[in-house]
C-alpha cells in the first residue's frame, strides 16, 4: 500500500459514502423484502419504489428533540454512540473490494488499507464496538438500558469467541491474516492427493471449511444483534434495550452502527469464505471477469445476498430466549468449532503428501474417528432411564423377580378393572363399554366430554 496521501483520502471518503449509501439502501431493502414476505407493499411513496424512504426517515430522526436523562453520565452518554459508529466504520477499511485498478492514473488496489494482520483489525473493531453498547446502557441510568447493555455485552463477547474460532480455521487453512491475501489464496483450487488419486477442491473456503462457514454465519448474526438474536433490544421485554434513553441523532447513530456492522460482517464473510471479489464460477468461463472494475459487481452482489439472508432470518425466525441463545453459543458453536479445528489440523497432516503413509493414515483416521465418536456420543437430551421392569427372563417368559416380591395376581387385576371404569363412567359422560384400559387424562389433551380410550384390538 504505497498510495499517495490524496488517493488515500479519496478512497477513505469513498468507503464512507459507500457505507452510508449501503445503510440507507439496506433499511429500505429490509422493509421491502419483509413486506414481500408478509404480502404487503412496504414503503413505496418517496422516490422510485420508495427508495428515498430511509433517507427521509433518517433526516426526520436527526431533527427530533435531543433529550438526556437527569441521571445520565453526560460525557459517556455522548461518547457511547460515537464509539459505536467509529468502530463500525473503521472495520470496513480493510475489506478488499476488487483487484488492482487504475485510479486517476495511479495504479492502486480497491482497498483502503491492508497489512499483515488486517483481519484482526475487524475483530479488534468489533471488540471495541461493544464499548459503545455497554457504555450507552450504563450511562443512561435506567434499568432497561442497563439490562440491555449487560445482555448485549454478554452476547457479543460470547459470540465473538465462536466467530474468532471460525475465522481461525481460515487462518489455519490459508496461513494468512491479511484480507487481500486470503482472497487471493481462495482464487486457486486446493490440490488433494488421496493415495495417488488426485483431485482439485474448489478454493473458496465455504466448501472445505463448511463447518466454520456455518458457525461464522450464525455467530455473525449474534455478533450484530440481529434477529433472531436481537435480545439486547428485545422490544417486548426491554423497550429498546441499551438505546432506550437515546433520541434524535444519537439514536440514529446506533442504528447506523448496527447496519454498518451488518454490512461489514457480510463483507468479511464474503472475503473469508466466498472468495471476496472473485467471480462466482470457475474463472475460466470469462477471463476478464476478475479484472478492472467488474469485481465490484461480484463483491457487492455477494454482500447483498448476505444482507438478504439477514432480512430473511428476521422475517422468518422468532426470537430466541436468552438462555437458549447462550446455550447455543457456548455449548454448541464453541465446542463444535474447537473440535472442527482439531479435525482440520489432523486432516491437514493426514492429507499432506509430504508425510509418510502410517502418519497420514493415523491422522486422517484419527480425525474420522473423532468425528464419528462425536456423532455417536453427542449427548442426548433425555437422561438415561434404567429399565424399571424386572427382568422377564429368557425369551420374554415371565419369571419371578429376583427380590421375590410376588406381583399382584392378574386375576385380581381383571376383577378390579370393571368397577374402576364404572366409577369413572358414573362421573363423566358415558364411555364406550368394555374399554379395558383408560388413560389418565392429561391436562389440555382434550375435553372431558370425550375421554380418550384405548381401542381394543
Amino acid at each position, binding site marked *: 500500500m504505497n498510495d499517495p496521501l490524496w488517493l488515500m483520502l479519496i478512497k477513505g471518503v469513498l468507503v464512507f459514502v459507500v457505507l452510508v449509501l449501503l445503510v440507507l439502501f439496506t433499511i429500505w431493502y429490509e422493509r421491502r423484502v419483509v413486506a414481500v414476505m408478509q404480502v404487503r407493499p412496504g414503503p413505496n411513496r418517496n422516490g422510485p419504489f420508495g427508495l428515498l424512504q430511509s433517507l427521509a426517515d433518517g433526516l426526520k430522526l436527526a431533527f427530533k428533540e435531543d433529550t438526556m436523562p437527569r441521571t445520565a453520565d453526560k460525557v459517556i452518554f455522548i461518547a457511547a454512540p460515537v464509539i459505536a459508529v467509529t468502530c463500525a466504520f473503521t472495520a470496513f477499511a480493510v475489506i478488499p473490494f476488487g483487484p488492482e485498478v487504475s485510479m486517476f492514473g495511479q495504479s492502486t488496489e480497491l482497498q483502503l488499507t491492508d497489512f499483515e494482520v488486517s483481519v484482526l483489525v475487524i475483530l479488534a473493531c468489533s471488540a471495541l464496538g461493544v*464499548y459503545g453498547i455497554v457504555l450507552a446502557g450504563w450511562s443512561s441510568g435506567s434499568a432497561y438500558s442497563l439490562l440491555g447493555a449487560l445482555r448485549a455485552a454478554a452476547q457479543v463477547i460470547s459470540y465473538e469467541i465462536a466467530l474468532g474460532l471460525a475465522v481461525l480455521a481460515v487462518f489455519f487453512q490459508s*496461513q494468512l491474516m491479511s484480507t487481500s491475501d486470503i482472497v487471493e489464496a481462495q482464487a486457486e483450487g486446493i490440490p488433494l492427493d488421496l493415495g495417488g488419486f488426485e483431485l482439485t477442491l474448489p478454493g473458496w473456503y465455504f466448501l472445505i471449511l463448511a463447518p466454520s462457514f456455518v458457525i461464522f454465519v450464525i455467530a455473525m448474526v449474534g455478533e450484530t444483534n440481529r434477529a433472531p438474536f436481537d435480545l439486547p433490544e428485545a422490544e417486548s421485554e426491554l423497550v429498546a434495550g441499551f438505546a432506550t434513553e437515546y433520541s434524535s441523532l444519537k439514536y440514529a447513530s446506533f442504528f447506523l452502527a448496527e447496519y454498518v456492522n451488518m454490512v461489514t460482517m457480510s463483507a468479511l464473510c464474503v472475503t473469508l469464505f466466498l472468495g471476496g471479489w472473485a467471480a462466482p464460477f470457475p474463472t475460466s468461463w470469462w477471463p476478464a471477469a476478475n479484472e478492472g472494475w467488474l469485481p465490484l459487481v461480484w463483491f457487492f452482489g455477494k454482500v447483498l445476498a448476505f444482507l438478504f439472508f439477514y432480512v430473511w432470518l428476521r422475517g422468518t425466525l422468532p426470537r430466541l430466549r436468552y438462555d437458549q441463545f447462550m446455550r447455543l453459543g457456548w455449548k454448541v458453536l464453541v465446542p463444535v468449532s474447537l473440535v472442527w479445528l482439531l479435525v482440520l489440523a489432523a486432516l491437514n497432516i493426514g492429507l499432506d503428501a509430504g508425510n509418510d503413509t502410517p502418519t497420514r493414515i493415523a491422522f486422517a483416521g484419527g480425525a474420522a474417528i473423532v468425528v464419528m465418536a462425536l456423532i455417536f456420543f453427542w449427548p442426548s437430551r433425555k437422561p438415561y432411564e434404567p429399565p424399571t421392569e424386572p427382568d422377564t427372563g429368557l425369551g420374554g417368559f415371565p419369571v419371578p423377580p429376583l427380590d421375590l416380591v410376588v406381583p399382584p395376581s392378574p386375576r385380581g387385576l381383571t376383577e378390579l378393572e370393571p368397577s374402576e371404569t364404572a366409577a369413572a363412567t358414573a362421573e363423566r359422560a358415558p364411555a364406550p363399554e368394555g374399554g379395558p384400559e383408560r388413560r389418565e387424562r392429561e391436562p389440555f389433551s382434550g375435553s372431558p366430554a370425550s375421554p380418550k380410550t384405548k381401542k381394543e384390538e
Partner: protein
Amino acid sequence: MIVDLAQSVDLAQSAGVGEAIAFWILAPIALGGAIGLVLARSAIHAALMLALTMICLAVFYIMQSAPFLGFVQIMVYTGAIMMLFLFVLMLFGRDSRDSMFETLRGQRFLAICLGIGLAALLASGLAHAVAGLTIAEGGPPTAEGAGGDSNVAAVAESLFTTYVFPFEVMSGVLTVAAVGALMFAHVARKGQAHGQKQASRERFAPGNYPGPLPGPGVFATSDSTATPALLPDGTVEQQSLSEYVPPRQLTAAETAPKQTEGRDE
C-alpha cells in the same frame, strides 16, 4: 483511527519521524489515562481511562514492529479483559463511586513517596542500563510465512518451538482459571427449575388470570410499575399490584413538575 495508526507503521519504518510524532502524541495520552485511572472517582471512568492507556500501548506495540501483539492487545486486553471489568462493575450497580477519604494513617503520603522513589530509581537504572542501546539493525524480527516475511509467523514459530512447553502450561492455566471462575461465581439454583411447559400450564391453570397484569392506567399519578392502577372510583385495582415490586403512591411533592423540561436551555 486504527487505520491511521496502522499507516503510521509504514511511516515509522520508512522514517523515524512518524514514530516520534506518534510517540509524543500518544505517550501523554497514555500517561494521562494512567493518572486518570488512579484519580477517577467512578470506577467506570477509571476503567475507561485504563482502556485508553491500553489502546495507546497497543499502538506502541504496532509501531515497535509487533503488529500481531498490538492487535491482540486490543482484542484481548481492551476487548475482553476490560470488558469483563466493565461487566462486573455493571453487576455491582451504578453507584459505585469511591469515597476518596483515606482511612489508613500515612498510607497516601508513604505511597506517593515510595512511588516517586521507585520511579526515580527505575528511570535512572534504565538510563544507566540502556545507555548506548539502539534499535537493532536489520529491521523487525520476522520469519518466513505463507505470505512472505511475517511477524505473525515469527511469533508462531517461537511459540511452537522454543516456548512450546510454557505454551502448553499456559493453556492449562487458562482452563483451570476458567473452571475456577465458574466455581467461584456459581450460585446454586434455589428450588426446582421452572420449565416453559410447566410455566405455561400454571399460567392457564384454573384460578389464574392468563393475560398480562394491567398497567398503572389513566388515573394513576405516575407510569412506574410500582404504581398501582386506579379504578375510576379511585380504588386500587388489585390485579395491578405486582408480586415483586412493593406498591408506592407518589406524594404530592413527587408528582409536582420537576423543572427538568427546560434543562437544555
